[in-house]
């Protein structure tokens, strides 16, 4: 009897420990820093979701890499399976241990490492420090990274080992993607998609460093370079150092020059793409989204250039017909949808808008027109040219376009309100009986109806799971 009681208490204690551990783990997953680029995309989650031993090329670095090289372009155009192992302001130790972490599940043939942050020894931005030190999951590499982190002197390591003392403060900024996995993490390959441009003033080129001076590499610098070389020899990949197009200043260019000397002496390939901007056709502002980062247009050019001038010599296989590489196809789809979304954000007339929408897939589009506008304008004629004619006649005001078919909200539905679940968190609700025209179309609690004086278009991309346009003409 006594034994049974002890036994039962032991079981209860174990159950409690498991319950507490599961709850603490749940809290950890919710509060954990999620983005490697301030966008709820986490490159190491994307790596985990990439099938084992499928990546042939890895690009390692900071925001210059995830902005400047698109694996989706390399896949779409050449069938090369690549990956951007890039974190905002990635320091060199994060690069080294992050690469070691990747090499646990992947066997790339080529690894190209951007040297912008080679001497990045000041992490001024707290969030970037956390992004780098929390990017890796709990592992020996994570412990080693914290131990060898040389971007900050006298780093207090304990909170980084235990993580909770830092991450728990995120309860102040919890968002949807802290509870729900960002779908893009299932298939993206580390890129940051944007096509924004920067106003490029003449002479902007002159701001980039042209110094040929060198910087004396110290013992720590040489050790890191040697570690990378030994890693490449141990794991059998081709190590290449590079500098991507970015606004390097003299204090960054000097160590880069020194590393290029070291690379030459040690038989490691080195490419300074920054000096080849003219050749890559990157001399205008529409290739950059700020003075230091390329946009999608620039990234496409750089990606193609890297393939033609670097990767093509390594006999990398075209895997486009291999079903194991489905996630790269989805990554391409992600890029195309993001590009479409960007284009929609920047249209300023109805024709361009409808041209873009005509290319779209997986969209739910709501067109709103008031009855008197119907009679007194040529909107129906315009919409008709795009194959958008009402399937059913209605005197009411709203239509929904789903898979390119325009459905009128009939009276019955209008009085009840029309609901459509767009994703597992977003719902479209249309109620044309509302006095306020803006509230006639609701996306969750956000009023998306127009002012009632023109054609209002609300577009929701079901693949991206977000609203991509809310326009009024």
């Amino acid at each position, binding site marked *: 009897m006594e034994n049974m009681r002890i036994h039962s208490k032991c079981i209860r204690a174990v159950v409690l420990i498991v319950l507490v551990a599961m709850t603490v783990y749940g809290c950890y997953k919710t509060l954990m820093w999620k983005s490697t680029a301030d966008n709820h995309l986490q490159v190491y989650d994307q790596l985990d979701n990439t099938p084992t031993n499928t990546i042939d090329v890895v690009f390692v670095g900071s925001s210059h890499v995830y902005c400047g090289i698109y694996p989706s372009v390399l896949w779409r155009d050449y069938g090369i399976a690549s990956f951007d192992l890039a974190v905002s302001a990635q320091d060199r130790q994060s690069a080294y241990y992050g690469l070691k972490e990747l090499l646990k599940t992947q066997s790339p043939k080529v690894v190209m490492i951007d040297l912008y942050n080679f001497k990045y020894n000041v992490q001024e931005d707290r969030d970037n420090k956390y992004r780098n030190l929390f990017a890796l999951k709990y592992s020996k590499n994570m412990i080693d990274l914290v131990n060898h982190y040389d971007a900050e002197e006298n780093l207090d390591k304990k*909170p980084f080992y235990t993580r909770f003392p*830092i991450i728990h403060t995120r309860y102040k900024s919890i968002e949807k993607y802290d509870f729900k996995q960002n779908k893009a993490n299932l298939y993206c390959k580390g890129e940051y998609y944007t096509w924004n441009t920067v106003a490029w003033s003449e002479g902007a080129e002159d701001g980039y460093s042209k110094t040929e001076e060198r910087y004396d590499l110290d013992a720590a610098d040489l050790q890191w370079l040697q570690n990378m070389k030994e890693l490449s020899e141990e794991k059998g990949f081709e190590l290449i150092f590079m500098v991507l197009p970015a606004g390097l200043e003299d204090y960054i260019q000097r160590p880069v020059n020194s590393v290029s000397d070291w690379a030459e002496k040690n038989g490691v390939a080195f490419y300074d793409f920054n000096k080849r901007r003219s050749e890559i056709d990157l001399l205008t502002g529409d290739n950059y989204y700020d003075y230091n980062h390329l946009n999608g247009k620039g990234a496409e050019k750089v990606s193609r250039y890297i393939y033609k001038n670097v990767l093509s010599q390594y006999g990398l296989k075209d895997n486009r017909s291999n079903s194991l590489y489905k996630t790269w196809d989805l990554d391409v789809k992600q890029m195309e949808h993001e590009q479409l979304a960007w284009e929609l954000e920047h249209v300023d007339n109805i024709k361009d808008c409808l041209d873009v929408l005509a290319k779209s897939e997986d969209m739910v589009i709501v067109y709103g027109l008031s009855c008197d506008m119907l009679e007194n304008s040529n909107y129906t004629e315009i919409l008709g040219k795009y194959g958008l004619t009402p399937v059913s006649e209605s005197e009411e005001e709203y239509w929904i376009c789903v898979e390119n078919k325009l459905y009128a909200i009939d009276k019955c539905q209008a009085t009840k309100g029309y609901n459509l679940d767009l994703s597992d968190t977003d719902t479209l609700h249309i109620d044309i009986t509302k006095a306020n025209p803006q509230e006639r179309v609701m996306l969750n609690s956000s009023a998306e109806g127009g002012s009632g004086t023109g054609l209002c278009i609300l577009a929701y991309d079901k693949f991206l799971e977000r609203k991509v346009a809310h326009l009024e003409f």
Partner: protein
Amino acid sequence: MLFNSIDFIIFFPIVVLMYYIIPKKMRYIWLLIASYYFYMSWNAKYAVLILFSTAVTYVSGILLGKAKTTASKKWIVAFSFVMNLGVLGFFKYFDFLLHNLNKVLQAVHITAVDNPFSFLLPVGISFYTFQALSYTMDVYRGQIEPEKNFLKYALFVSFFPQLVAGPIERSGNLLKQIKDMEKKSMWNYEGAASGLIMMLWGFFMKMVIADRIALFVKEVFENVYRCGTVETVLGAMAFAVQIYCDFGGYSAIAIGAAKILGFDLMENFNAPYFSESIAEFWRRWHISLSFWFRDYLYIPLGGSRCSRVKKYRNLAITFLVSGLWHGAAWTFVIWGGIHAIYQIIGDLLKPVKAKCNEILHTNTQVFSYHFGRVCITFLLTCFAWIFFRAKSMSEAMYYLNRMFTRWNPWVVFDESLFGFGLDRREVGILIFAILLLILVDLLRITKKESIGAFVLRQNLWFRYAVIVFLVVFIIVYGEYGVAFDSSKFIYFDF
């Protein structure tokens, strides 16, 4: 090491695990090593002081056991007191005395004296000194036999859960349990479970409530110039909550930790803000210290078994000394003095109050009567806390000036209160946590049991839910980590 630190989270389970693995007769040695390690993590050099206090009171105990005459016993007690209070006085009050001496010298145009020393106040010196002295007195009074085993006695003085901020234990309780360690059962499941819940509740009080509300208190007290009645009253009330949760939380952790190790420490807080009078408040607040002063100062002075004037004199002395014990500053003395005045006036007004109740036909059995008394007592303690919190008399007087001369009720509605260190979200969390605290204290006074005992009586699902809830709330909403100042417990300066 602080209780709310990674070091303690690692230290404590190792101590507990080893404690239950090693043979029973060696356990006290292990606890003694752990206690000294705990103390030396603050500053290794100050272990000499606790060792000194231990040695003096141990020897005093032995000598008291051998002494034949009352006179010689009194000399031994005096020796123990002088040595211990001398050390305490030197480390704690030297600066204060010198500062006041220099003020006097300045007033008569004499050059101030330089302070030749520079040292930090040893953590917990007020607590372990009083604990050791209580042993001397208990042996003197014949309430306990002198302890012959030096190591067991050293453990009594240095027992780590209560070493640096109490409860100030009595030899009749803690030393007795240490002596009886070998008779304890191998493992007390209920004790450990109850202790764990107490510890979690203590962390909740300290990390979720005390450290959070401290941000508001700090903003108010450091920016009194922009405060009016509303902010200053709220600031005083907030400090009342802060000091209760800080100190009460520490005590709960200490009692819980001791319970896990199989020791029952005395209760230190018993829902003090539900007191209906200041006298009752001191039976519920920092109970171990109040009882110490009652047994070793107030009663020896004559207590209340003397004329009214002497009784009030004894009260005043006790509370003034208690104030001084809390800190080497006149504000603490004033704070103690205010409590003495409260009690004296309360005693004087007893017949007046009774007469008023009779004339007004006040029903003293109803909720409103008791609620009113609780509110008044709380407000009186909050007023006194202003002096406790203020860094100087002038700061305290300025605070009161703002409280009584800047009537500004509109700040309740214009959201400017959210500019005092806590935004809406933080205030929401605080209010929820304080409501929980009130609920727990209400349970305490109605059920007369600790939260640990109460939860342990409930069904399994409820016990698990409470534990999981506390763990989650502490690790998510606790004020700790690199983004916050992991503030040490307030009473560590005593």
